[in-house]
């Protein structure tokens, strides 16, 4: 009864140089951190 969903480890190296540079800038700031910075109702 287990449902398996394949995950892809995204290969951003295939993207264009400008996109990659943009991503590098982004990673410097955030490094793909999705964890929430606030909690519901905190605003």
């Amino acid at each position, binding site marked *: *009864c287990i*449902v398996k969903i394949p995950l892809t*480890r*995204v290969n*951003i190296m295939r993207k264009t140089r400008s996109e990659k540079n943009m991503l590098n800038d982004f990673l410097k700031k955030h*490094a*793909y951190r*999705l*964890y*929430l910075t606030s909690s519901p109702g905190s605003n």
Partner: protein
Amino acid sequence: ISTHPLGNIEDMVYVGNITIGTPPQKFQVVFDTGSSDLWVPSISCTSQFCSSHALFRHLESSTYWPTQKTFSIEYGSGRMKGVVAHDTVRIGDLVSNDQQFGLSLEHSGFKGMPFDGILGLNYPNFSFTGGTPIFDNLMNQGAISEPVFAFYLSKSKLEGSVVMFGGVDKSYYQGALNWVPLIQAGDWRVHMDRISMEGQVIACSGGCEAIVDTGTSLIHGPRRLLNKILSFIGATPRGSKHYVSCSAVNTLPSIDFTINGINYTLPAQAYAIKDSTGDCYIFFKQIRASRTTETWILSDVFLRQYFSVFDRGNDRIGLAQAV
């Protein structure tokens, strides 16, 4: 022809496909244990993010119905705003009818990201859309046999990673599956005993908290303690990153994360990765230190080594050596 392997430094996000609506519209999402909401971009979205991603066309879905509710979510990597809606969501063979989800209209910070949306797998109390998260709906609707899901994040291959729902496939791990109770039901956060290198406690000396988060790529920890580890490794700062010589990686010490009395070892090959310039940088990042609690985020870097099971039925996390 001479071929050379390329370091794949930004190869850090794991995405999977889901569908929303009738007939189904496909989206590539991050399965994120750090948040609780599902959102995808709306056809009405005008942000730059939306120009390069799959957009939900609500008028084309016969099972869609809107609400008057709006929501906003601020993640560590960006923020978005949108409206709350309901529709049928499918994850593989699993169907969540009348699933509440977010349709994003504005984004900041997500530009260029290789996913359309995020599917949160945390407890309901972290929901910003205010509805029942998809895993809770699947449990309530009796769609899954056991209230668990598990992640196998492949170390080297672009493919081979899976998230599984409703049970655990033992072929993805070896040895024992060690269970760790949550500090509190409501967040995938456990108590960690200590962090040590070569037998020396280097952080978390009095115990600390660890968030087990599939939506984060690097190990996050408090600045002072991270600096201690980086100094122990002999990493040198360059820009916002810390580097070591790639030729030295094989000689660098492992890091032991002790959780519930069991050591989970992270070898240097897991935390020091070769980048496109041929240098090796350390997969750690600072987190803003809490005044009260020392918190670490055990992210994909850790979860590539350890198969992880998220057990909602018993409010615990299982960890085992990944194959």
